[in-house]
């Protein structure tokens, strides 16, 4: 467990070090005003340098440091593999659902996309036997209520899509 946390920090340190180098390279293309002592690339470059130094410290800490205090290690040890993979799947599916939701929001419109997103998201997150009829009713009514609440009451613009 502790070894894992240290290994993770090692990889993180390396990752952030590479990231800071990337930032530095990207910042070289920022245009300069000749007259100013400090140009627009100063702060990003300074930040990149500090981030690189901190990453190196993190790497050194993870290689040479004493074991991390308990506060930093993850609380729950891997319980059963089954529940872990289930959890991972839930996270991945949630992620994909939100992604699709955003992709189709504008072309298809708020009402339909939201209802569909909610329905599937309820399903993915449910821990017990899913009650699909209830999910469908809740999803559709929520979508309609939110749409009218925002468009009519709060006068915000939402994508109407193919219904518009």
């Amino acid at each position, binding site marked *: 467990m502790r070894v894992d*946390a240290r290994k993770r920090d090692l990889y993180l340190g390396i990752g952030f070090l590479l990231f800071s180098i990337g930032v530095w390279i990207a910042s070289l293309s*920022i245009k300069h005003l000749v007259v100013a002592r*400090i140009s627009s690339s100063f702060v990003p470059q300074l930040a990149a340098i500090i981030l690189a130094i901190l990453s190196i410290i993190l790497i050194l800490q993870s290689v040479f440091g004493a074991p991390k205090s308990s506060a930093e290690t993850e609380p729950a040890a891997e319980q059963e593999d089954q529940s872990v993979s289930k959890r991972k799947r839930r996270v991945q599916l949630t992620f994909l659902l939100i*992604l699709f939701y955003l992709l189709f929001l504008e072309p298809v419109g708020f009402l339909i996309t939201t209802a569909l997103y909610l329905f599937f998201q*309820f399903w993915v997150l449910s821990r017990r036997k899913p009650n699909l009829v209830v999910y469908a009713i809740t999803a559709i009514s*929520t979508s309609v209520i*939110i749409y009218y609440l925002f468009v009519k009451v709060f006068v915000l613009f939402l994508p109407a899509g193919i219904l518009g």
Partner: protein
Amino acid sequence: MLEMFYVGFAQVLALKPLVLIFLGVGVGIVFGAIPGLTATMAVALFLPITFGMHPVEGMSLLIGLYIGGVSGGLISAILIKIPGTPSSIATTFDGYPMAEKGEAGKALGAGIFYSFLGGWFSFLVLFFIAPPLADIALKFGPPEYFSIAIFSLTLIASLSTGSTIKGLMSGIVGILLSCVGTAPIDAFPRFTFGFRELDGGFNLLPALVGLFAITEILKTAESDIEIKLEHIANYKIKGFGFSAKEFVQQLGNFIRSALIGTGIGILPGIGGGTSNILSYIAAKKMSKHPEKFGTGILDGVVASETANNASIGGALVPLLAMGIPGDTVTAMLLGGLMIHGLSPGPLLFTTSGNIVYGIFAALIVANFVMVLMEYFGIRFFVRLLKIPKHIMLPIIIVFCVVGAYGLNNRVFDAWSVMLFGVIGYAFEKWGFPLAPVILGFILGPIAETNLRRGLMMTQGDFLPFLTKPVSGAFLVIALASVVYSVIKERKRTKG
């Protein structure tokens, strides 16, 4: 000052602001009571709705949400032993044991009462400190603002939970994210990689919603914890549950906790989530009977619930006087003021004094509303704990998207929500604190603009930043706080 309070109350004591305060406090308590939903999220979700409102109305709603959100956490802390928000973590230590002993009503009553008092204490501090502080801050130039921003950044990084190194790294990542878009002063584009949408940079609101709300739903998707109703303790509230004698006994504890809460609130970047624990520890250390802490004594609940609400007024001090948020919720309030074209800072008192005092009045009213609603509505809030999370969280995601989209009517902002959500989730997994990211995001541009403006004034000479007393002092404290926390951490990892 009194006249200004009349002006403030005149604006708030009208039908619409009052309805909004009731709505805000009610929704806030719900967010506070339900584990996983926090005051920060409540304010983030309702920010977009305030676009179309008068500033005082919008702020009334947000202040209601803030106070409700911090106060609602005690319900679940005491009744199901799960803190509703980080602000009520220490409330579980003695609150739940009290409930187990059959004193749930007493714990709830005292929690509500001391939340109210703690809030009041910090408001008085706010009312007396913020205006003169703003007067002083009026004389500040770019060097002072630069140094205060740097000071705030180092402080939040070193005081946040976990490793100082990771806290500092989070802060730097926040600064880098704020660099995307048009640079201050000379307006050259940075890190836009040719995307026109990135020219304006990331908006604060999608950043906040993504970091806090999306991260939360992904975390919930991962966890297996489900609240079971059988675990809700029985309770009966009668009066506030404690006697006048007990009130006198708790007076010292109350004052100490209120001071800790307000002080922690004033410090940039940390708020109720830290103060309730520190105040609990302090109460235990100073107590004549420390061994009784954790067994269900009133002292523990009083310490925690006084301190977390006392942080509200404290956190508003630097926000209103200098435009520097005292915690994540006030970072959101900063956004709330900015969408109305108001930039918080010393000038706000002179240019928009009526709004500042409107906010003060809203605080006082919302605090009363909080006691009433929490006391009489507790049955209702407990019932809400039953709503399954797999129904609630997706609906919140929809609100996030609506809010982010409504900002500029472009899907790009909804994408930024996603991006920040991924960053937040990854950081959370990797043990990086999130608060420094958002503070870096807000304070980075303040520091940069003032640094470059200051250097223009001094013809490129950095020395005045160090020799000006206020500016120099803050830079020295900033350095000291980093050195101190690094030494402390070395000791911890070695010992």
